[in-house]
């Protein structure tokens, strides 16, 4: 469907080639060799811009002056490629967001040039003796993506321009659903239209329309499918679940809500309603927080999927009436060294996915001008076919008032981007299992973002706070969801004919359901419309009035005055029967052994440590972090990279406005490997890790709000649902232990892939916990890098032989199942974190790092690297070096930090912080000395830890 409305015409084109080396070429060459296409010797890239119209020499000269930088590039008109081994030419589908065509079209109109259409593409001139299969692989996996572009081999590509005269059928189809429709017929309609509804839901729908005595229109069906989709309705989290012990539980969402109510924290302003959670740590200032997933889109179009994922979560914060200030992301990919031949059909190589996703996140965050401050990147074979992309955003407001519902006669105002065929059926798509053909059938479900348009929206809304009654963003389901939700309990009357379109020819249902990005829907008191419209003109934001809120509780949609939809908002939002599901609870191993397992004691500690430092999950992420702007706004006070030369890994990050003496810390907890063995302990561990991270940088654990994000397999599988139930139990226990309420969350289920082999590839149970915590004194924050030789190192917390699903097990190739027990939650942790925070506020701590993947040894090595200082581990109590040494160094027991304290503060620190054990000193001899005397030089540590790519 993407770009379907194109017409092919003869055209002229200019080819723009870089005079110096084109960095893109080197990147493709490298990636191709990673794919095993070693016969590729060279790639030369030329950008192509196609023009339609009666273009004169004069126009050509003008255009050339616009698109060619004479010092760096060479431009040629209508010159086809010189002969080469192969020439691949690509062209974007019409309507795919592309700033070059947008801006050139705008200029052509303003300068009244004789140009009637612009399209863009690329030419790859390939040197190398590639087989047909290799050429196909190179093209489809590195050079082009059928989701957004077309290509031609060894012949000039014919660009497709937007058809300015396209017309759409405005025919409204009535679908045969009435009393007589059989369940099988319903199932067929469900499948044919990709509604992704349950049988009971189809029956409820049938009953409703039978009662109404009027067949549903196609638009009505699609609207219900969107509103009732797993993505929008969270059916599993709202389901009644019966576990194998016969007990039927409250819904998972109610369990989380009840936990937040029990904690009853004074700083919570709004939890689990609206677009984001809202909290307030300081009088007059509120903070909105939200984390979203964009997994399926990122799997089939990594750049666009991640790009729009970031744009979407930023709009969530805008939809909560807050001004965005920072972004976060957590990314999960297949192993970098995955054999390309082992990939399931339709799956990109992990590095191709990773680089595309990171480009997409950097492109949106950097261009919209928000710092990307915190994140994590995890690698595991289970993510090869189902990469996970979690994107978060934080916003602030000094004027927040609780949002009110629209009143009758308020106008329905849509601001921002125009509507195209982008992302049609995204909500239902993301609720379906993927297969090899997903890319083809759901192509339109992925878009490319336009961060500049959204940036203008941010600036406008910053100035327009007083001009609207309520606001929401256009996400999955587009206008149907946004207006549908706002109209709940009041009703709205909408005229789709007035919607500004990217290109003509959209059918009413396409306009109504389009997921075109960068749009917000506002309910505006008629007497404020003129002022808002004027403000939009100044900010360059498109303003359109689509109708009004009615008060009749009916959602009514017209197209050119013809009715296309009329639904009772109560049925739309509350008519869906609750899902009943069955869960088989996991029965994890829980008996902690007395000592370290043999699979690790067989290895030398030095070898284990170096292998851990080189593991992609632990090794330096500097190359990725430098791709993101983390400095804009000048408020990133504890950065993702810290230390003497700015390459050390931090724990949490701290954002503090240069004019404030306080700030907020952001911490992230995630460990899918624990989830495979013990979902409940995994959730507790994730909550503990998020808290450990924020405490380590100087935040106050007693002022913490949490976000939950679940990326899971198919919950219809009882064991998978059991893991989800166990994880929610763990979340709630963790929240209660720390008095840290959940204020918002999101679930992405069905992260499974059915290969053409018919085999199911599911993600491990992946829970991401984000902690947002008050930092009372920005000046007293702490970083993880060692500061000064002679200082004392202390380990706080208790270490047990807990090696289950540990990274030590991974690098020792020990199967998860036999690796041991997943670390248990330490009930003394909340109290100890409070004490540690006291010590930091008193300035007793100069460095602090939490112990997580890889255990104490990795933590201390990272602290040495950050400070470019050595450390000598000395133990007060004698160890049984045979086993205890391994436990001390590599166990992943929870609740632990390593702190660096100046000698003259040692007594005060130990008096304040319980369970703190002296276990070493900072040295200036540039080496890490283990308790058994083994020494690793800084050079050795860096060599193992610094990532290649």
């Amino acid at each position: 469907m993407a770009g379907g409305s194109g017409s092919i015409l003869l055209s002229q084109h200019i080819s723009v080639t870089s005079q110096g080396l084109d960095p893109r070429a080197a990147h493709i060459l490298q990636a191709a060799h990673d794919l095993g296409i070693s016969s590729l010797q060279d790639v030369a890239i030329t950008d192509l811009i196609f023009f339609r119209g009666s273009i004169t020499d004069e126009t050509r000269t003008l255009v050339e002056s616009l698109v060619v930088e004479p010092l760096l590039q060479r431009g040629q008109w209508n010159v086809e490629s010189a002969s080469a081994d192969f020439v691949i030419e690509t062209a974007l589908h019409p309507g795919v967001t592309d700033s070059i065509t947008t801006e050139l079209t705008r200029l052509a109109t303003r300068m009244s040039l004789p140009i009637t259409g612009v399209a863009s593409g690329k030419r790859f001139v390939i040197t190398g003796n590639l087989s047909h299969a290799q050429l196909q692989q190179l093209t489809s996996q590195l050079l082009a993506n059928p989701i957004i572009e077309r290509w031609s081999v060894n012949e000039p590509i014919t660009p497709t321009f937007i058809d300015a005269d396209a017309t759409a059928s405005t025919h409204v189809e009535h679908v045969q659903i009435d009393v007589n429709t059989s369940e099988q017929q319903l199932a067929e309609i469900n499948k044919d239209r990709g509604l992704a509804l349950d049988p009971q839901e189809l029956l409820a729908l049938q009953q409703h329309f039978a009662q109404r005595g009027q067949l549903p229109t196609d638009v009505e069906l699609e609207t219900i499918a969107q509103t009732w989709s797993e993505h929008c309705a969270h059916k599993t989290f709202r389901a009644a679940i019966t576990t194998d012990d016969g007990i039927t539980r409250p819904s998972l969402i109610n369990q989380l809500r009840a936990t937040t109510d029990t904690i009853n924290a004074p700083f919570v302003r709004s939890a689990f309603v609206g677009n984001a959670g809202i909290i307030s740590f300081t009088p007059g200032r509120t903070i909105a927080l939200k984390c979203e997933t964009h997994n399926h889109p990122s799997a089939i179009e990594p750049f666009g999927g991640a790009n729009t994922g970031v744009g979407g979560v930023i709009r969530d914060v805008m939809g909560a009436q807050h001004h965005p200030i920072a972004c976060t992301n957590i990314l999960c990919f297949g192993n970098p060294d995955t054999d390309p031949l082992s990939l399931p059909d339709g799956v990109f190589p992990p590095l191709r996915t990773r680089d595309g996703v990171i480009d997409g996140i950097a492109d949106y965050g950097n261009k919209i001008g928000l710092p990307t401050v915190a994140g994590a990147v995890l690698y595991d074979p289970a993510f090869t076919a189902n990469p996970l992309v979690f994107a978060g955003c934080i916003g602030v407001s000094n004027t927040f008032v609780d949002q009110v519902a629209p009143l009758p006669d308020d106008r329905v105002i849509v601001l921002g981007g125009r509507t195209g065929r982008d992302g049609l059926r995204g909500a239902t798509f993301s609720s379906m299992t993927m297969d090899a053909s997903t890319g083809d059938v759901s192509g339109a479900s992925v878009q490319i973002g336009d961060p500049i348009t959204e940036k203008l929206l941010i600036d406008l809304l910053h100035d327009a706070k007083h001009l609207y009654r309520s606001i929401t963003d256009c996400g999955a389901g587009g206008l149907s969801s946004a207006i549908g939700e706002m109209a709940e309990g009041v009703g709205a009357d909408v005229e789709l004919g007035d919607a500004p379109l990217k290109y003509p020819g959209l059918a009413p249902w396409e306009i109504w359901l389009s997921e075109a990005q960068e749009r917000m829907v506002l309910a505006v008191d008629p007497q404020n419309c003129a002022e808002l419209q004027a403000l939009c003109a100044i900010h360059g934001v498109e303003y359109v009035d689509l109708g009004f809120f009615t008060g009749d509780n009916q959602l009514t949609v017209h197209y050119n005055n013809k009715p296309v939809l009329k639904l009772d908002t109560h049925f739309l939002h509350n008519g869906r029967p609750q899902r009943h599901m069955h869960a088989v609870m996991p029965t994890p191993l829980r008996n902690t052994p007395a000592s370290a397992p043999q699979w690790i004691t067989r290895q030398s500690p030095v070898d284990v440590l170096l292998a851990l430092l080189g593991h992609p999950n632990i090794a330096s992420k500097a190359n990725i972090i430098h791709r993101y702007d983390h400095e804009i706004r000048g408020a990133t006070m504890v950065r993702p990279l810290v230390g003497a030369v700015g390459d050390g890994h931090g724990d949490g990050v701290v954002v503090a406005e240069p004019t404030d003496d306080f700030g907020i810390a952001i911490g992230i907890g995630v460990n899918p490997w624990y989830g495979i063995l013990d979902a409940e302990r995994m959730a507790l561990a994730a909550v503990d890790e998020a808290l450990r991270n924020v405490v380590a940088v100087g935040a106050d654990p007693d002022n913490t709000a949490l976000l939950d994000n679940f990326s899971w397999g198919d919950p219809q599988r009882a064991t998978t649902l059991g893991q989800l139930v166990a994880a929610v139990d763990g979340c709630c226990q963790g929240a209660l232990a720390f008095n840290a309420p959940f204020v918002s969350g999101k679930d992405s289920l069905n992260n499974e892939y059915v290969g053409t082999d018919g085999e199911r590839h599911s993600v491990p149970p992946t829970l991401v916990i984000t902690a947002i915590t008050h930092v009372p004194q920005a000046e007293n924050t702490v970083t993880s890098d060692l500061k000064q030789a002679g200082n004392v190192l202390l380990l706080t917390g208790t270490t047990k032989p807990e090696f289950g699903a540990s990274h030590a097990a991974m690098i020792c190739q020990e199967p998860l199942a036999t690796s041991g027990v997943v670390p248990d939650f330490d009930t003394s942790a909340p109290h100890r974190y409070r004490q540690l925070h006291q010590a930091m506020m008193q300035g007793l701590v100069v460095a602090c790092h939490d112990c997580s993947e890889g255990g104490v040894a990795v933590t201390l090595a990272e602290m040495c690297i950050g400070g470019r200082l050595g450390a000598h581990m000395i133990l007060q109590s004698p160890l049984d070096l045979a086993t205890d040494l391994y436990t001390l160094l590599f166990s992943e027991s929870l609740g632990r930090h390593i702190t660096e304290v100046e000698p003259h503060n040692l007594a005060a620190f130990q008096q304040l912080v319980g369970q703190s054990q002296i276990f070493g000193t900072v040295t200036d001899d540039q080496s890490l000395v283990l308790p058994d005397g083994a020494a690793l030089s800084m050079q050795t540590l860096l060599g193992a830890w610094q990532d290649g790519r």
Partner: protein
Amino acid sequence: MNVTTKMNMKPHALVLTAPGTNRHPDVMFALELAGANASSLNLNQLRDQPSAIANAQLIVIAGGFSFADALGAGRLFALELSHLVGDALRTAVAKGTPIIGICNGFQTLVRMGMLPGASDAALGHNESGGFQCRWVTMQPVSKKSVWTKHLTQEIYCPIAHGEGRFTCSDSTLASLQRNDQIALTYTTNPNGSRADIAGVCDESGLVLGLMPHAENHVVARQHPQFHRGARNGLGLHLFTQGVLHATS
């Protein structure tokens, strides 16, 4: 002297923005700290009040991704500015108004020909091939630029760009050196810029363009080694120089 007259003595700094400009709040904060009254105008507002240029005592073209860098960083911003206020900006320089373009603003001034640019110089893609955000050290060099001539210490601040590689012909480089127009140089070259050039000025010394974001290191707390006691390299001094010149 009472507060209001003090206020009145503050020079007015005008910050120009385009769709996609995103560091204007940062530079306005820096200008206020440096003793100016800062306000910003986007292109739509400038269209209605072109006289704002003549009334400003200091002019900034802020960083960001104007027009999403379509057709090359700064190209369309330069086109719009030349069209709207090109003459007014040149007049402002003629009467001694200091102008600074940072990052995308630098790229814009070069494309406008208000700095060595147009056919002489350009800012190309980083050697690394992509966007880079990292801290760099800049040495003030030019005794001609009103922005750098009184600077005695190096400036430590972040870069955040994908197209910051300063490129020029041998003859242009020679004339830049001859005329003391190389304003700032990198201690460690982050992007492959010719002769480690981080910033250049025009022949009058009033117009400065630089890639690094001095506006993101204007208070000690912003130093990435703040927790290690580092307090050096404030970028604020650069703006103080501009503001002092505007007041003189």
